[in-house]
């Protein structure tokens, strides 16, 4: 028989081993060797703190008492893990992105950093977890008792519990508050509980294998034994099966210790991906041999034996002391790992949401502005850890460790599940508000206290016996086990039903009717849309904290003079008079950097975060955010406009280039043309004048003929030079307009007559609308007539139709009087259309004479007259539109 001392030595050795593991891991982490510490398998194993001593020992007891119901405790979390893609993925991403330190922090941060909510969740967590810690202490003492003398008394148990609690608080203080990490990761602790996870799984499997193969003789025999036992029939109430599965799934997300390992200690999606499938399998293995062990215990042990200890007593009764010790270590591991992590999680919450705010509030007016806040934070953590464990111990000592404690596991689950609506609502629903969360958690908490937690102490302990008989003050509708007349339910399910449903309804309704503050809305958007910003590194997004708080804190760390200098500098930079700058994000960054110079970056971040309250936003910052967005949008619109403009300009430039190229070609062609035009008359003038000079035998007829040729040629030259001069005058704007009044029809009559007088060109039929032409114009009618003549003469010259016709239409529109000259010829080719108005431009190089100046002159004239002339494509022939400005036309009336 193993003595208690030997057992104590074994346990102590084991604890030493854990210390070593934690120490090595912590040192490796400090040296930066974190790869293996962050391995997904370590994360997965660390999740096993869900399996506490309550499940390690208690599952068998639960199987004996309630049949297969124990499975629900494992199935719920497995469901959550398998469904990682729905919720957990988002939860851990939010946890990482927002540097969440605990579930209370998550809730309070999501709902606009409400400290009230933080305090509420912390209280709920402490009340819900303390009995659970007591339960772990109880299981360790009971398991120690199994090895001790049967006649040992209660004081011995209390001593065991006390030393276990003391040892655990020592471990937790050492490894749980080693540093103030910015993201609250505890590599040593996580590594230790991963090792413990292996130990407890191995221990339970060893006992199971021993029972199935060693005692029962194989799988089929074991199954037959199970069928033949008291557990042989499936006997689970449907409601409890569903209810407990859902409850444990909810608790899995909400338990502070689970949140600690699952969200706070997480640092990559890869960790979650392994855990998502490996952890359900771990849970399956943990629960695989529960029923055979229970059946073996029922068969082998005397009727009164405590089924909660079958895992220990079955191997012991078979003389397997080694196995029993292994099993003891498994149970010990389960208990210790749970207590350690729960203590860390609770102490973080208590310290961040209760102790530090109170301490800062109390010290705000204190005269002493010296001292290191870091020590205060660590001290408050350490005291909180000890306080939590002490509370657990006191609870255990007071409750006397009876059967009442065994039931506390589910009671605790139910209490913490009250956070679920606010948690899920917070990460999936932007409409969830602080009021909603407060209302939901408040109502759920109250119902849980009244209907489940207080009654769990037993009738007459806290709630009087009368309450359980007739309801409080005789009101039956308020009976704790039959609220609003809903009796006949199992008390646990009754409390779960009422608390969670009213919690959810209150949460929803209060969220609907309340309006969130700007901070809440911003936080809500960041939480709900976490995927969008999953990669962005977050700085301080502003703080609504009082600058004075920051000042107080900074003075304590930097020293009064330095801090004041820093604040003054920043205030000047912001243009604020006085000593206190506005707590803008920029200022907080600067402050954090300054603090980091004194106490390290991580600590500085944690301190600003923990004391100021992380991620607070002022309305100014919100507006800045909106402003920034507006600026970005405006900027991008401007860029777009610029790029469109550039495209347009490029096209215009290309067109201009094409035109220039064509013009250059034209100019070359013109030069040869003009030299030809000048040369031809010059040649004949020279030739005939030489003949007249050199030959004396010219008769008067010949002489007259030659002289007239010379005269004609000089006229032609003069006309050409006149045209050039005319154009040059028009272009230089030196022309004087001779404004007169004349009827359009008269003007056109003269133009037609003048054009017809020209001997060149075919005869052309001209269609006119005399009625529309009865308009009086006041303009330089000679110049306008020149344009008309030119157009009509062109039509005569170039219209190549067999039966040439020119249609002149006159219309009035807003821009003025529009006169179209449309012939029925081939028209002007598209390439030629934009150059015909240029100087020296001639369509083709056909027979018709002229230097190609006519239309250029027309355009200049029209420009002088304030009108326009343009080519009108698509009219079935060459078509020109002359626009005479309205002002002149109206002036004529």
């Amino acid at each position, binding site marked *: 028989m193993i003595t208690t001392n030997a057992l104590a030595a074994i346990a102590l050795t084991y604890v030493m081993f854990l210390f070593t593991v934690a120490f090595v891991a912590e040192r490796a982490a400090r040296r930066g060797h974190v790869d293996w510490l962050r391995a997904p398998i370590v994360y997965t194993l660390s999740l096993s703190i869900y399996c506490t001593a309550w499940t390690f020992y208690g599952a068998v007891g639960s199987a004996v008492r309630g049949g*297969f119901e124990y499975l629900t405790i494992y199935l719920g979390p*497995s*469901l959550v893990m*398998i469904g990682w*893609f729905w919720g957990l993925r988002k939860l851990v991403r939010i946890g990482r992105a927002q540097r969440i330190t605990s579930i209370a922090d998550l809730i309070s941060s999501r709902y606009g950093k409400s400290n009230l909510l933080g305090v509420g969740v912390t209280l709920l967590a402490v009340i819900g977890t303390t009995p659970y810690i007591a339960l772990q202490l109880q299981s360790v003492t009971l398991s120690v008792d199994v090895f001790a003398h049967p006649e040992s008394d209660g004081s011995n148990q209390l001593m065991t519990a006390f030393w276990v609690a003391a040892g655990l608080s020592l471990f937790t203080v050492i490894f749980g508050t080693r540093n103030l990490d910015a993201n609250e990761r505890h590599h040593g602790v996580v590594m230790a509980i991963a090792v413990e996870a292996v130990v407890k799984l191995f221990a339970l499997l060893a006992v199971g294998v021993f029972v199935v193969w060693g005692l029962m003789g194989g799988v089929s025999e074991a199954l037959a034994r199970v069928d033949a036992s008291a557990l042989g029939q*499936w006997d689970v109430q449907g409601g409890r*099966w569903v209810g407990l599965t859902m409850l444990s799934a909810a608790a899995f997300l909400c338990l502070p210790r689970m949140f600690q390992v699952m969200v706070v200690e997480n640092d990559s999606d890869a960790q979650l991906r392994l855990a998502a499938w490996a952890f*359900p*399998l771990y849970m399956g293995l943990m629960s695989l041999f529960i029923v055979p062990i229970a059946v073996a215990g029922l068969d082998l042990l005397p009727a009164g034996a405590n089924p909660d200890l079958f895992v220990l007593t079955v191997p012991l009764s078979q003389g397997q002391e080694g196995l029993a010790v292994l099993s003891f270590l498994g149970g010990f591991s389960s208990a210790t790992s749970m207590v350690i992590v729960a203590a860390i999680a609770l102490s973080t919450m208590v310290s961040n949401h209760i102790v530090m705010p109170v301490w800062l509030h109390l010290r705000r007016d204190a005269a002493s502005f010296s001292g290191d806040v870091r020590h205060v934070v660590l001290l408050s953590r350490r005291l909180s850890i000890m306080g939590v464990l002490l509370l657990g111990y006191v609870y255990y000592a007071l409750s006397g460790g009876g059967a009442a404690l065994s039931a506390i596991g589910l009671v605790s689950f139910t209490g913490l599940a009250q956070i679920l609506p606010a948690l899920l609502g917070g990460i999936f629903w932007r409409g969830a508000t602080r009021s909603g969360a407060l209302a939901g958690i408040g109502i759920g908490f109250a119902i849980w206290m009244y209907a489940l937690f207080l009654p769990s102490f037993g009738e007459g302990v806290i709630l009087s016996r009368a309450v359980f008989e007739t309801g409080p003050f005789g009101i039956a509708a308020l009976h704790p086990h039959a609220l609003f007349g809903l009796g006949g339910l199992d008390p646990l399910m009754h409390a779960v039903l009422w608390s969670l449903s009213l919690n959810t309804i209150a949460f929803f309704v209060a969220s609907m009717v309340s309006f969130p503050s700007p901070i809440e809305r911003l936080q809500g958007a960041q939480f709900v849309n976490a995927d969008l910003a999953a990669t962005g590194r977050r700085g301080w997004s502003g703080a609504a904290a009082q600058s004075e708080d920051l000042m107080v804190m900074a003075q304590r760390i930097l020293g009064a003079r330095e801090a004041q200098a820093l604040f003054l500098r920043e205030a000047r930079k912001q243009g604020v008079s006085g000593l206190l700058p506005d707590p803008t994000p920029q200022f907080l960054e600067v402050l954090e950097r300054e603090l980091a110079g004194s106490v390290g970056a991580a600590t500085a971040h944690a301190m600003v975060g923990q004391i100021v309250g992380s991620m607070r936003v002022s309305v100014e910052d919100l507006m800045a955010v909106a402003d920034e967005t507006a600026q*970005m949008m405006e900027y991008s619109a401007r860029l777009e406009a610029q790029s469109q403009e550039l495209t347009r300009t490029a096209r215009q430039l290309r067109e201009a280039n094409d035109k220039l190229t064509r013009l250059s070609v034209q100019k070359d062609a013109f030069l040869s043309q003009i030299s030809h035009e000048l040369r031809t008359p010059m040649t004949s003038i020279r030739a005939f004048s030489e003949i007249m000079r050199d030959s004396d035998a010219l008769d008067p007829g010949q002489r007259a003929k030659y002289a007239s040729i010379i005269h004609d040629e000089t006229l032609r030259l003069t006309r050409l030079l006149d045209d050039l001069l005319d154009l040059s005058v028009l272009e230089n704007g030196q022309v004087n307009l001779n404004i007169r009044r004349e009827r359009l029809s008269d003007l056109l009559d003269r133009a037609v007559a003048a054009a017809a007088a020209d001997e060149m060109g075919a005869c052309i039929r001209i269609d006119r609308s005399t009625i529309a032409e009865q308009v009086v114009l006041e303009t330089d009618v000679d110049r306008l007539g020149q344009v008309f003549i030119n157009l009509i003469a062109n039509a005569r010259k170039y219209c190549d139709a067999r039966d040439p016709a020119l249609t002149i239409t006159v219309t009035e529109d807003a821009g003025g009087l529009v006169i179209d000259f449309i012939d029925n010829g081939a028209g002007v080719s598209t390439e030629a259309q934009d150059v015909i108005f240029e100087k020296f431009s001639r369509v083709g190089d056909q027979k018709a004479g002229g230097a190609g100046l006519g239309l250029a002159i027309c355009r200049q004239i029209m420009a002088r007259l304030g009108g326009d002339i343009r080519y009108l494509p698509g009219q079935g022939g060459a078509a020109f539109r002359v626009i005479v400005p309205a002002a002149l036309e109206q002036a004529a009336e």
Partner: protein
Amino acid sequence: MNAGPPPPLFVERQTYRLRRLRDAARALPVLALMLWLVPILWSMPGEAVSASGALIYLFGTWAALGLSAGLLIWAIERAERRARAAEDEARARRETAL
């Protein structure tokens, strides 16, 4: 807030596959829930189910679901790698084209 272009309505093959795998990851817990709610039927009168049968069913589904979840995650990771590789390739091609 979002000034970027709207997400495309239709995606390439790899991305499509990845999305369907994620759908499967969402569907798996629903399947798990249905499978694990089957025991409600057993507690109905006249439906006596032996303990061994219940154990085999529950642990069988448990192992199957855990392994399928693992398989699915493996497939998702592979599809993500492929989609990323395809994206990189497309980007490289665009850059060389420019």
